[in-house]
Protein backbone atom coordinates (compact mmCIF):
# COMPACT_ATOMS: atom_id res chain seq x y z
CA UNK A 1 0.00 0.00 0.00
CA UNK A 2 1.19 3.46 -0.80
CA UNK A 3 0.36 4.56 2.69
CA UNK A 4 3.71 3.82 4.08
CA UNK A 5 5.70 6.21 1.99
CA UNK A 6 5.59 9.85 3.00
CA UNK A 7 3.02 11.77 1.10
CA UNK A 8 3.40 14.65 -1.27
CA UNK A 9 2.25 17.99 0.06
CA UNK A 10 -0.40 18.71 -2.46
CA UNK A 11 -0.88 22.29 -1.35
CA UNK A 12 2.61 23.02 -2.57
CA UNK A 13 2.67 20.85 -5.61
CA UNK A 14 -0.36 22.64 -6.94
CA UNK A 15 -3.23 21.12 -8.81
CA UNK A 16 -2.94 17.54 -9.83
CA UNK A 17 -5.84 17.01 -12.13
CA UNK A 18 -5.75 13.26 -12.19
CA UNK A 19 -5.75 12.69 -8.48
CA UNK A 20 -8.57 10.43 -7.39
CA UNK A 21 -11.35 12.13 -5.52
CA UNK A 22 -11.33 10.97 -1.89
CA UNK A 23 -14.91 12.10 -1.50
CA UNK A 24 -16.15 9.63 -4.07
CA UNK A 25 -17.08 6.12 -3.03
CA UNK A 26 -14.20 4.38 -4.71
CA UNK A 27 -11.53 6.02 -2.66
CA UNK A 28 -13.43 5.56 0.57
CA UNK A 29 -12.71 1.91 0.12
CA UNK A 30 -9.13 2.49 -0.90
CA UNK A 31 -7.58 5.20 1.24
CA UNK A 32 -5.24 7.16 -0.95
CA UNK A 33 -2.02 8.50 0.40
CA UNK A 34 -2.71 12.13 -0.32
CA UNK A 35 -3.58 14.82 2.15
CA UNK A 36 -5.75 16.79 -0.18
CA UNK A 37 -8.90 16.45 -2.08
CA UNK A 38 -8.51 17.17 -5.77
CA UNK A 39 -9.97 20.00 -7.79
CA UNK A 40 -13.65 20.52 -7.35
CA UNK A 41 -14.40 20.39 -11.04
CA UNK A 42 -14.43 16.64 -10.91
CA UNK A 43 -17.22 16.49 -8.40
CA UNK A 44 -19.19 19.13 -10.23
CA UNK A 45 -19.04 17.42 -13.57
CA UNK A 46 -20.16 14.11 -12.08
CA UNK A 47 -23.36 15.42 -10.57
CA UNK A 48 -25.69 18.34 -10.66
CA UNK A 49 -25.71 19.93 -7.26
CA UNK A 50 -26.47 18.38 -3.96
CA UNK A 51 -28.79 15.53 -4.93
CA UNK A 52 -26.81 14.44 -7.94
CA UNK A 53 -26.30 11.05 -6.32
CA UNK A 54 -30.03 10.35 -6.79
CA UNK A 55 -29.59 10.20 -10.53
CA UNK A 56 -29.54 6.66 -11.93
CA UNK A 57 -26.31 7.34 -13.77
CA UNK A 58 -24.75 7.75 -10.37
CA UNK A 59 -26.02 4.74 -8.42
CA UNK A 60 -27.01 2.30 -11.16
CA UNK A 61 -23.52 0.91 -11.95
CA UNK A 62 -22.93 0.08 -8.31
CA UNK A 63 -26.41 -1.44 -7.90
CA UNK A 64 -25.96 -3.61 -10.98
CA UNK A 65 -22.58 -4.84 -9.80
CA UNK A 66 -23.95 -5.61 -6.32
CA UNK A 67 -26.84 -7.63 -7.76
CA UNK A 68 -24.45 -9.52 -10.02
CA UNK A 69 -22.12 -10.30 -7.13
CA UNK A 70 -25.08 -11.41 -5.01
CA UNK A 71 -26.20 -13.80 -7.73
CA UNK A 72 -22.69 -15.18 -8.12
CA UNK A 73 -22.59 -15.72 -4.35
CA UNK A 74 -25.94 -17.53 -4.35
CA UNK A 75 -24.89 -19.82 -7.21
CA UNK A 76 -21.62 -20.66 -5.45
CA UNK A 77 -23.38 -21.20 -2.14
CA UNK A 78 -25.85 -23.58 -3.81
CA UNK A 79 -23.10 -25.59 -5.50
CA UNK A 80 -20.73 -25.85 -2.58
CA UNK A 81 -22.27 -24.97 0.77
CA UNK A 82 -18.90 -25.48 2.50
CA UNK A 83 -17.38 -22.62 0.54
CA UNK A 84 -20.02 -19.95 1.15
CA UNK A 85 -23.19 -19.94 3.25
CA UNK A 86 -26.41 -18.82 1.52
CA UNK A 87 -26.93 -15.06 1.87
CA UNK A 88 -30.27 -15.68 3.50
CA UNK A 89 -28.56 -17.72 6.21
CA UNK A 90 -26.15 -14.90 6.93
CA UNK A 91 -29.07 -12.49 7.19
CA UNK A 92 -30.90 -14.86 9.52
CA UNK A 93 -27.84 -15.24 11.72
CA UNK A 94 -27.68 -11.47 12.07
CA UNK A 95 -31.43 -11.06 12.61
CA UNK A 96 -31.67 -13.91 15.12
CA UNK A 97 -29.30 -12.33 17.60
CA UNK A 98 -28.39 -8.73 16.78
CA UNK A 99 -27.38 -7.98 20.36
CA UNK A 100 -24.76 -10.74 20.23
CA UNK A 101 -23.09 -9.13 17.22
CA UNK A 102 -23.42 -5.66 18.67
CA UNK A 103 -21.72 -6.50 21.97
CA UNK A 104 -18.93 -8.37 20.22
CA UNK A 105 -18.50 -5.59 17.67
CA UNK A 106 -18.29 -3.12 20.52
CA UNK A 107 -15.64 -5.22 22.26
CA UNK A 108 -13.53 -5.28 19.11
CA UNK A 109 -14.11 -1.60 18.42
CA UNK A 110 -13.09 -0.62 21.96
CA UNK A 111 -9.82 -2.52 21.62
CA UNK A 112 -9.21 -1.00 18.20
CA UNK A 113 -9.85 2.57 19.33
CA UNK A 114 -7.90 2.35 22.58
CA UNK A 115 -4.97 0.76 20.75
CA UNK A 116 -5.19 3.42 18.08
CA UNK A 117 -5.21 6.16 20.70
CA UNK A 118 -2.10 4.74 22.36
CA UNK A 119 -0.35 4.40 19.01
CA UNK A 120 -1.39 7.89 18.01
CA UNK A 121 -0.10 9.63 21.12
CA UNK A 122 3.16 7.71 21.06
CA UNK A 123 3.85 8.20 17.37
CA UNK A 124 2.90 11.87 17.41
CA UNK A 125 5.28 12.64 20.25
CA UNK A 126 8.02 10.68 18.53
CA UNK A 127 7.31 12.46 15.24
CA UNK A 128 7.80 15.83 16.93
CA UNK A 129 11.03 14.61 18.52
CA UNK A 130 12.29 13.24 15.23
CA UNK A 131 11.48 16.41 13.32
CA UNK A 132 13.17 18.63 15.90
CA UNK A 133 16.30 16.57 16.47
CA UNK A 134 18.24 15.54 13.36
CA UNK A 135 20.18 13.00 15.43
CA UNK A 136 16.98 11.32 16.53
CA UNK A 137 15.72 11.38 12.96
CA UNK A 138 18.80 9.65 11.60
CA UNK A 139 18.63 7.04 14.33
CA UNK A 140 14.91 6.34 14.33
CA UNK A 141 13.58 6.83 10.83
CA UNK A 142 15.39 3.93 9.12
CA UNK A 143 14.04 1.58 11.78
CA UNK A 144 10.59 3.11 11.43
CA UNK A 145 10.59 2.57 7.68
CA UNK A 146 11.61 -1.08 8.03
CA UNK A 147 9.03 -1.72 10.74
CA UNK A 148 6.33 0.01 8.73
CA UNK A 149 6.73 -2.54 5.95
CA UNK A 150 6.84 -5.43 8.41
CA UNK A 151 3.47 -7.16 8.95
CA UNK A 152 3.41 -6.45 12.64
CA UNK A 153 0.15 -8.36 13.17
CA UNK A 154 2.31 -11.46 12.93
CA UNK A 155 3.61 -10.89 16.44
CA UNK A 156 0.09 -11.31 17.86
CA UNK A 157 0.52 -15.03 18.71
CA UNK A 158 3.84 -14.32 20.40
CA UNK A 159 2.25 -11.57 22.45
CA UNK A 160 -0.54 -13.94 23.52
CA UNK A 161 2.12 -16.32 24.77
CA UNK A 162 3.75 -13.47 26.67
CA UNK A 163 0.70 -11.68 28.04
CA UNK A 164 -2.05 -14.28 28.07
CA UNK A 165 -5.64 -13.76 27.05
CA UNK A 166 -6.12 -10.32 28.55
CA UNK A 167 -6.44 -7.08 26.59
CA UNK A 168 -2.68 -6.41 26.52
CA UNK A 169 -1.71 -8.34 23.37
CA UNK A 170 -4.65 -6.86 21.45
CA UNK A 171 -3.83 -3.30 22.50
CA UNK A 172 -0.13 -3.76 21.76
CA UNK A 173 -0.78 -5.13 18.27
CA UNK A 174 -3.28 -2.40 17.42
CA UNK A 175 -1.07 0.36 18.78
CA UNK A 176 1.93 -0.99 16.89
CA UNK A 177 0.34 -1.23 13.49
CA UNK A 178 -1.04 2.29 13.85
CA UNK A 179 2.27 3.65 15.07
CA UNK A 180 4.45 3.70 12.00
CA UNK A 181 2.13 5.11 9.34
CA UNK A 182 1.37 8.02 11.69
CA UNK A 183 5.02 8.49 12.62
CA UNK A 184 6.20 8.58 9.02
CA UNK A 185 3.45 10.84 7.73
CA UNK A 186 3.47 13.29 10.62
CA UNK A 187 7.24 13.62 10.71
CA UNK A 188 7.16 14.36 6.99
CA UNK A 189 4.33 16.85 7.50
CA UNK A 190 6.12 18.66 10.30
CA UNK A 191 8.98 19.36 7.93
CA UNK A 192 6.80 20.31 4.97
CA UNK A 193 6.75 24.01 5.81
CA UNK A 194 7.88 26.14 2.87
CA UNK A 195 11.25 27.93 3.17
CA UNK A 196 9.56 31.31 2.70
CA UNK A 197 7.28 30.76 5.69
CA UNK A 198 10.26 29.59 7.75
CA UNK A 199 12.15 32.73 6.79
CA UNK A 200 9.29 35.00 7.81
CA UNK A 201 9.02 33.35 11.21
CA UNK A 202 12.78 33.22 11.68
CA UNK A 203 13.05 36.97 11.20
CA UNK A 204 10.40 37.32 13.89
CA UNK A 205 12.66 35.20 16.09
CA UNK A 206 9.91 32.66 16.76
CA UNK A 207 10.96 30.10 19.35
CA UNK A 208 10.98 26.41 18.47
CA UNK A 209 7.84 25.90 20.48
CA UNK A 210 6.06 28.77 18.76
CA UNK A 211 7.19 27.47 15.41
CA UNK A 212 5.91 24.01 16.27
CA UNK A 213 2.59 25.18 17.60
CA UNK A 214 1.77 27.93 15.11
CA UNK A 215 3.37 26.59 11.96
CA UNK A 216 4.61 23.01 11.95
CA UNK A 217 1.75 21.15 13.59
CA UNK A 218 -0.97 22.81 11.47
CA UNK A 219 1.12 22.10 8.38
CA UNK A 220 1.29 18.46 9.38
CA UNK A 221 -2.48 18.08 9.77
CA UNK A 222 -3.18 17.08 6.14
CA UNK A 223 -0.48 14.43 6.47
CA UNK A 224 -1.90 13.26 9.78
CA UNK A 225 -5.35 12.79 8.29
CA UNK A 226 -3.94 10.85 5.40
CA UNK A 227 -2.38 8.51 7.94
CA UNK A 228 -5.58 8.35 10.01
CA UNK A 229 -7.68 7.38 7.02
CA UNK A 230 -5.41 4.38 6.65
CA UNK A 231 -4.89 3.62 10.29
CA UNK A 232 -8.51 3.67 11.49
CA UNK A 233 -9.51 0.62 9.43
CA UNK A 234 -6.10 -0.89 10.13
CA UNK A 235 -6.76 -0.71 13.87
CA UNK A 236 -9.76 -3.02 13.43
CA UNK A 237 -7.64 -5.49 11.51
CA UNK A 238 -5.11 -5.42 14.36
CA UNK A 239 -7.77 -6.05 16.98
CA UNK A 240 -9.36 -8.90 15.02
CA UNK A 241 -6.07 -10.65 14.30
CA UNK A 242 -5.12 -10.42 17.97
CA UNK A 243 -8.49 -11.93 18.92
CA UNK A 244 -8.03 -14.70 16.40
CA UNK A 245 -4.67 -15.57 17.94
CA UNK A 246 -6.13 -15.73 21.43
CA UNK A 247 -8.90 -18.28 20.93
CA UNK A 248 -9.82 -18.34 24.61
CA UNK A 249 -10.60 -14.64 24.68
CA UNK A 250 -14.10 -13.98 25.89
CA UNK A 251 -15.37 -11.34 23.53
CA UNK A 252 -14.88 -9.73 20.16
CA UNK A 253 -15.77 -10.46 16.57
CA UNK A 254 -12.40 -12.18 16.05
CA UNK A 255 -13.30 -14.65 18.79
CA UNK A 256 -16.75 -15.11 17.27
CA UNK A 257 -15.16 -15.93 13.93
CA UNK A 258 -12.64 -18.41 15.32
CA UNK A 259 -15.23 -20.19 17.49
CA UNK A 260 -17.83 -20.32 14.71
CA UNK A 261 -15.41 -21.65 12.10
CA UNK A 262 -14.24 -24.46 14.36
CA UNK A 263 -17.93 -25.37 14.72
CA UNK A 264 -18.53 -25.15 10.98
CA UNK A 265 -21.04 -22.35 11.38
CA UNK A 266 -20.19 -20.48 8.20
CA UNK A 267 -23.19 -18.17 8.37
CA UNK A 268 -22.02 -16.78 11.71
CA UNK A 269 -18.49 -16.29 10.35
CA UNK A 270 -19.77 -14.26 7.45
CA UNK A 271 -22.20 -12.33 9.59
CA UNK A 272 -19.27 -11.29 11.80
CA UNK A 273 -17.21 -10.34 8.75
CA UNK A 274 -20.14 -8.29 7.53
CA UNK A 275 -20.19 -6.46 10.86
CA UNK A 276 -16.45 -5.79 10.55
CA UNK A 277 -16.92 -4.34 7.07
CA UNK A 278 -19.66 -2.04 8.34
CA UNK A 279 -17.50 -0.97 11.26
CA UNK A 280 -14.52 -0.20 9.05
CA UNK A 281 -16.65 1.80 6.64
CA UNK A 282 -18.24 3.77 9.47
CA UNK A 283 -14.85 4.61 10.93
CA UNK A 284 -13.63 5.73 7.53
CA UNK A 285 -16.74 7.85 7.10
CA UNK A 286 -16.26 9.45 10.49
CA UNK A 287 -12.60 10.24 9.95
CA UNK A 288 -13.34 11.67 6.51
CA UNK A 289 -16.06 13.88 7.98
CA UNK A 290 -13.72 15.11 10.71
CA UNK A 291 -11.03 15.72 8.12
CA UNK A 292 -13.45 17.79 6.06
CA UNK A 293 -14.14 20.01 9.03
CA UNK A 294 -10.60 20.33 10.35
CA UNK A 295 -9.00 20.86 6.95
CA UNK A 296 -11.73 23.22 5.71
CA UNK A 297 -8.97 25.72 4.94
CA UNK A 298 -7.18 23.42 2.57
CA UNK A 299 -6.76 24.85 -0.92
CA UNK A 300 -8.75 22.09 -2.60
CA UNK A 301 -11.66 22.30 -0.17
CA UNK A 302 -11.78 26.09 -0.40
CA UNK A 303 -11.95 25.83 -4.15
CA UNK A 304 -14.78 23.30 -3.87
CA UNK A 305 -16.84 25.71 -1.78
CA UNK A 306 -16.47 28.91 -3.74
Amino acid at each position, binding site marked *: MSVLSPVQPSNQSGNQPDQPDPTSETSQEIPVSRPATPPATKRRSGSTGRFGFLRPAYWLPLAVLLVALGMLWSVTANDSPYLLPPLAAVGEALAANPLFYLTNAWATLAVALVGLAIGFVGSFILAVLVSELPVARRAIMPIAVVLSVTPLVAIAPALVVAFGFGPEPKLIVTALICFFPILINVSTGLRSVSPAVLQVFT*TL*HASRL*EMLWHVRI*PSALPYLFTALRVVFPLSIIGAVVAELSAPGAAEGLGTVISVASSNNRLAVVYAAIFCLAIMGSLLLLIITAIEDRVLHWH*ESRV*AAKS
Partner: protein
Amino acid sequence: MTLTSPSVTTADSISIRGAVKIYGSGASQHVALQNVDVDIKRGQFVSIIGPSGCGKSTLLRLIAGLEDADEGIAEVFGVTAEQACAAKMIGLVPQAPALLPWKDVLGNVSMPAKINRRADKLRRRIHGHLERPAPDMIDLLHKAGLADAVHKLPAQLSGGMQQRAAIVRAFGVQPDVLLMDEPFSALDEFTRESIQEQLLDIWDENKTTVVFVTHSVSEAVRLSDKVLVMSARPGRITASVDITLPRPRSQAMLKSAEFHHFEDVIRDHLQTAWQENPMTGSTPIAAGAAS
Protein backbone atom coordinates in the same frame (compact mmCIF):
# COMPACT_ATOMS: atom_id res chain seq x y z
CA MET B 1 23.25 39.96 25.33
CA THR B 2 24.20 43.60 24.99
CA LEU B 3 22.21 45.56 22.54
CA THR B 4 24.64 48.43 22.37
CA SER B 5 27.51 46.71 20.63
CA PRO B 6 30.15 48.99 19.12
CA SER B 7 28.95 50.17 15.77
CA VAL B 8 31.06 50.85 12.73
CA THR B 9 29.03 53.83 11.70
CA THR B 10 26.14 55.69 13.21
CA ALA B 11 23.47 53.65 14.90
CA ASP B 12 20.88 55.18 12.69
CA SER B 13 21.55 53.28 9.50
CA ILE B 14 21.74 49.80 8.12
CA SER B 15 25.34 49.33 7.24
CA ILE B 16 27.14 46.52 5.57
CA ARG B 17 30.90 46.72 5.36
CA GLY B 18 33.04 44.53 3.16
CA ALA B 19 30.54 41.70 3.12
CA VAL B 20 31.73 38.52 1.41
CA LYS B 21 29.52 35.49 0.94
CA ILE B 22 30.82 32.35 -0.69
CA TYR B 23 28.69 29.31 -1.42
CA GLY B 24 30.23 25.89 -1.85
CA SER B 25 33.92 25.15 -1.75
CA GLY B 26 36.72 24.03 -4.02
CA ALA B 27 35.90 23.87 -7.71
CA SER B 28 32.20 24.53 -7.22
CA GLN B 29 32.93 27.62 -5.17
CA HIS B 30 30.65 30.51 -5.99
CA VAL B 31 31.22 34.05 -4.81
CA ALA B 32 27.70 35.33 -4.23
CA LEU B 33 28.82 38.62 -2.70
CA GLN B 34 32.20 40.25 -2.96
CA ASN B 35 33.13 43.24 -0.85
CA VAL B 36 29.69 44.70 -0.66
CA ASP B 37 29.27 48.01 1.13
CA VAL B 38 25.80 49.34 1.76
CA ASP B 39 24.53 52.27 3.77
CA ILE B 40 20.85 52.83 4.22
CA LYS B 41 19.63 55.68 6.39
CA ARG B 42 16.60 55.34 8.60
CA GLY B 43 13.42 56.12 6.71
CA GLN B 44 14.93 55.62 3.28
CA PHE B 45 13.35 53.52 0.56
CA VAL B 46 16.19 51.73 -1.18
CA SER B 47 15.87 49.34 -4.10
CA ILE B 48 18.37 46.75 -5.20
CA ILE B 49 18.29 45.89 -8.87
CA GLY B 50 20.34 43.49 -10.94
CA PRO B 51 20.22 40.40 -13.11
CA SER B 52 19.08 37.07 -11.73
CA GLY B 53 21.67 35.35 -9.62
CA CYS B 54 23.70 38.47 -8.83
CA GLY B 55 23.17 38.05 -5.11
CA LYS B 56 20.23 40.35 -4.36
CA SER B 57 18.43 37.79 -2.22
CA THR B 58 21.68 36.84 -0.54
CA LEU B 59 22.25 40.47 0.42
CA LEU B 60 18.72 40.70 1.78
CA ARG B 61 19.14 37.49 3.76
CA LEU B 62 22.31 38.96 5.24
CA ILE B 63 20.40 41.98 6.52
CA ALA B 64 17.61 39.72 7.78
CA GLY B 65 20.05 37.62 9.75
CA LEU B 66 19.00 34.53 7.82
CA GLU B 67 22.57 34.09 6.65
CA ASP B 68 25.96 35.00 8.10
CA ALA B 69 28.57 36.76 6.01
CA ASP B 70 31.86 34.92 5.57
CA GLU B 71 33.65 38.23 5.99
CA GLY B 72 32.58 41.73 6.83
CA ILE B 73 30.00 43.22 9.09
CA ALA B 74 26.26 43.64 8.79
CA GLU B 75 24.57 45.98 11.23
CA VAL B 76 20.96 47.02 11.49
CA PHE B 77 20.62 50.33 13.29
CA GLY B 78 23.54 49.68 15.56
CA VAL B 79 22.84 46.07 16.46
CA THR B 80 23.60 42.77 14.75
CA ALA B 81 21.02 41.29 12.44
CA GLU B 82 20.30 38.57 14.98
CA GLN B 83 19.66 41.06 17.74
CA ALA B 84 17.44 43.00 15.37
CA CYS B 85 15.37 39.85 14.77
CA ALA B 86 15.15 39.16 18.48
CA ALA B 87 13.68 42.65 18.90
CA LYS B 88 11.33 42.16 15.94
CA MET B 89 12.88 45.10 14.14
CA ILE B 90 12.76 43.33 10.79
CA GLY B 91 9.73 42.65 8.63
CA LEU B 92 10.19 40.28 5.71
CA VAL B 93 8.08 40.03 2.58
CA PRO B 94 9.34 37.10 0.54
CA GLN B 95 8.74 36.54 -3.15
CA ALA B 96 5.94 34.06 -2.44
CA PRO B 97 3.31 35.46 -0.05
CA ALA B 98 4.04 32.69 2.49
CA LEU B 99 0.74 33.06 4.32
CA LEU B 100 -0.52 30.34 6.63
CA PRO B 101 -3.32 28.68 4.65
CA TRP B 102 -5.32 27.69 7.74
CA LYS B 103 -5.61 31.27 9.03
CA ASP B 104 -7.82 33.90 7.48
CA VAL B 105 -6.26 37.19 6.40
CA LEU B 106 -6.79 38.84 9.78
CA GLY B 107 -5.38 35.79 11.54
CA ASN B 108 -2.36 35.86 9.29
CA VAL B 109 -1.54 39.52 9.72
CA SER B 110 -2.09 39.30 13.49
CA MET B 111 0.25 36.33 13.77
CA PRO B 112 3.53 38.26 14.31
CA ALA B 113 2.05 39.93 17.38
CA LYS B 114 1.51 36.53 18.99
CA ILE B 115 5.08 35.49 18.46
CA ASN B 116 8.22 36.44 20.36
CA ARG B 117 6.45 38.68 22.85
CA ARG B 118 9.68 39.51 24.64
CA ALA B 119 10.71 41.59 21.64
CA ASP B 120 8.91 44.75 22.72
CA LYS B 121 11.05 45.01 25.83
CA LEU B 122 14.24 44.48 23.85
CA ARG B 123 13.15 47.00 21.29
CA ARG B 124 12.77 49.80 23.80
CA ARG B 125 16.36 49.37 24.89
CA ILE B 126 17.71 49.84 21.40
CA HIS B 127 19.06 53.27 20.75
CA GLY B 128 17.27 55.27 18.11
CA HIS B 129 14.27 53.00 17.94
CA LEU B 130 11.07 54.95 17.53
CA GLU B 131 8.33 53.72 19.80
CA ARG B 132 5.08 53.44 17.87
CA PRO B 133 1.75 52.14 19.06
CA ALA B 134 0.68 48.80 17.64
CA PRO B 135 -1.28 49.49 14.48
CA ASP B 136 -4.94 48.64 14.07
CA MET B 137 -4.70 45.68 11.74
CA ILE B 138 -8.22 46.08 10.37
CA ASP B 139 -7.45 49.68 9.53
CA LEU B 140 -4.20 48.66 7.85
CA LEU B 141 -6.01 45.98 5.85
CA HIS B 142 -8.50 48.58 4.66
CA LYS B 143 -5.68 50.82 3.51
CA ALA B 144 -4.16 47.95 1.60
CA GLY B 145 -7.41 47.36 -0.24
CA LEU B 146 -8.24 44.19 1.68
CA ALA B 147 -11.45 45.41 3.33
CA ASP B 148 -13.50 42.62 1.77
CA ALA B 149 -10.92 39.97 2.43
CA VAL B 150 -10.47 40.33 6.18
CA HIS B 151 -12.10 37.01 6.96
CA LYS B 152 -11.15 35.15 3.81
CA LEU B 153 -8.67 32.33 3.62
CA PRO B 154 -5.50 32.77 1.54
CA ALA B 155 -6.71 30.16 -0.94
CA GLN B 156 -9.72 32.35 -1.66
CA LEU B 157 -7.57 35.31 -2.67
CA SER B 158 -5.81 36.26 -5.88
CA GLY B 159 -2.02 36.43 -5.95
CA GLY B 160 -2.11 40.21 -5.65
CA MET B 161 -4.39 40.10 -2.61
CA GLN B 162 -2.18 37.48 -0.97
CA GLN B 163 0.87 39.64 -1.50
CA ARG B 164 -0.98 42.64 -0.05
CA ALA B 165 -1.76 40.57 3.03
CA ALA B 166 1.91 39.59 3.30
CA ILE B 167 2.88 43.26 3.17
CA VAL B 168 0.35 44.19 5.84
CA ARG B 169 1.64 41.34 7.98
CA ALA B 170 5.16 42.72 7.70
CA PHE B 171 4.04 46.27 8.52
CA GLY B 172 2.03 44.97 11.44
CA VAL B 173 5.00 44.59 13.78
CA GLN B 174 6.04 48.19 13.05
CA PRO B 175 9.46 46.99 12.00
CA ASP B 176 12.39 49.36 11.83
CA VAL B 177 13.17 47.94 8.42
CA LEU B 178 11.03 46.20 5.88
CA LEU B 179 12.83 43.76 3.59
CA MET B 180 11.03 42.87 0.37
CA ASP B 181 12.38 40.30 -2.07
CA GLU B 182 10.81 40.80 -5.50
CA PRO B 183 7.38 40.88 -3.88
CA PHE B 184 5.53 41.87 -7.04
CA SER B 185 7.37 39.84 -9.64
CA ALA B 186 4.56 37.30 -9.96
CA LEU B 187 1.85 39.93 -10.42
CA ASP B 188 0.37 41.38 -13.57
CA GLU B 189 1.07 44.97 -14.58
CA PHE B 190 -2.23 46.45 -13.31
CA THR B 191 -2.10 44.77 -9.94
CA ARG B 192 1.52 45.72 -9.66
CA GLU B 193 0.88 49.42 -10.13
CA SER B 194 -2.00 49.61 -7.70
CA ILE B 195 -0.13 47.62 -5.08
CA GLN B 196 2.91 49.88 -5.53
CA GLU B 197 0.70 52.86 -4.84
CA GLN B 198 -0.70 51.29 -1.69
CA LEU B 199 2.77 50.35 -0.52
CA LEU B 200 3.87 53.96 -0.94
CA ASP B 201 0.80 55.18 0.95
CA ILE B 202 1.43 52.90 3.89
CA TRP B 203 5.15 53.67 3.80
CA ASP B 204 4.39 57.39 3.80
CA GLU B 205 2.45 57.07 7.01
CA ASN B 206 4.81 54.74 8.79
CA LYS B 207 8.11 56.02 7.40
CA THR B 208 9.70 52.65 7.82
CA THR B 209 13.02 51.98 6.19
CA VAL B 210 12.49 49.72 3.18
CA VAL B 211 14.97 47.58 1.28
CA PHE B 212 13.28 46.43 -1.88
CA VAL B 213 14.68 43.88 -4.32
CA THR B 214 13.32 44.11 -7.84
CA HIS B 215 14.24 43.44 -11.41
CA SER B 216 11.92 46.07 -12.82
CA VAL B 217 13.61 49.39 -13.59
CA SER B 218 10.45 51.48 -13.51
CA GLU B 219 9.36 49.90 -10.24
CA ALA B 220 12.72 50.78 -8.72
CA VAL B 221 12.55 54.38 -9.93
CA ARG B 222 8.98 54.89 -8.83
CA LEU B 223 9.40 53.57 -5.32
CA SER B 224 12.89 54.48 -4.25
CA ASP B 225 14.98 57.22 -2.78
CA LYS B 226 18.07 55.33 -3.86
CA VAL B 227 18.66 52.48 -6.29
CA LEU B 228 21.62 50.13 -5.89
CA VAL B 229 22.63 48.41 -9.12
CA MET B 230 24.22 44.99 -8.73
CA SER B 231 26.22 42.86 -11.09
CA ALA B 232 26.94 39.15 -11.06
CA ARG B 233 30.05 36.99 -10.95
CA PRO B 234 31.07 37.99 -8.45
CA GLY B 235 28.00 39.64 -6.95
CA ARG B 236 28.79 43.26 -6.18
CA ILE B 237 27.25 46.71 -6.19
CA THR B 238 28.31 48.62 -9.31
CA ALA B 239 26.36 51.83 -8.95
CA SER B 240 24.17 53.79 -6.58
CA VAL B 241 21.64 56.17 -8.09
CA ASP B 242 19.76 58.72 -6.00
CA ILE B 243 16.24 59.23 -7.27
CA THR B 244 15.47 62.85 -6.60
CA LEU B 245 11.93 62.85 -7.96
CA PRO B 246 9.49 64.60 -5.62
CA ARG B 247 6.94 62.64 -3.62
CA PRO B 248 4.14 61.67 -3.71
CA ARG B 249 4.82 60.08 -7.06
CA SER B 250 1.63 60.00 -9.01
CA GLN B 251 0.62 57.82 -11.90
CA ALA B 252 1.19 60.83 -14.21
CA MET B 253 4.79 61.17 -13.18
CA LEU B 254 5.56 57.75 -14.66
CA LYS B 255 5.35 59.37 -18.09
CA SER B 256 7.42 62.44 -17.29
CA ALA B 257 10.83 63.13 -18.81
CA GLU B 258 12.62 63.10 -15.44
CA PHE B 259 11.21 59.70 -14.69
CA HIS B 260 12.49 58.37 -18.00
CA HIS B 261 15.83 60.02 -17.35
CA PHE B 262 16.28 57.99 -14.17
CA GLU B 263 15.14 54.83 -15.90
CA ASP B 264 17.75 55.40 -18.60
CA VAL B 265 20.51 56.02 -16.10
CA ILE B 266 19.75 52.74 -14.36
CA ARG B 267 19.41 50.84 -17.61
CA ASP B 268 22.83 52.13 -18.67
CA HIS B 269 24.37 50.94 -15.43
CA LEU B 270 22.77 47.54 -15.83
CA GLN B 271 23.88 47.37 -19.45
CA THR B 272 27.50 48.16 -18.57
CA ALA B 273 27.49 45.62 -15.80
CA TRP B 274 26.11 43.05 -18.14
CA GLN B 275 28.56 43.75 -20.95
CA GLU B 276 31.43 43.27 -18.54
CA ASN B 277 29.88 39.97 -17.61
CA PRO B 278 27.86 38.47 -20.44
CA MET B 279 28.44 35.05 -18.90
CA THR B 280 25.63 35.49 -16.43
CA GLY B 281 23.40 34.11 -19.10
CA SER B 282 20.53 36.43 -18.51
CA THR B 283 19.62 39.87 -19.72
CA PRO B 284 19.82 42.60 -17.12
CA ILE B 285 16.13 43.27 -17.14
CA ALA B 286 14.59 39.91 -17.61
CA ALA B 287 10.96 40.88 -17.39
CA GLY B 288 8.98 38.29 -15.54
CA ALA B 289 12.03 36.15 -14.87
CA ALA B 290 12.00 34.87 -11.34
CA SER B 291 15.32 34.36 -9.68
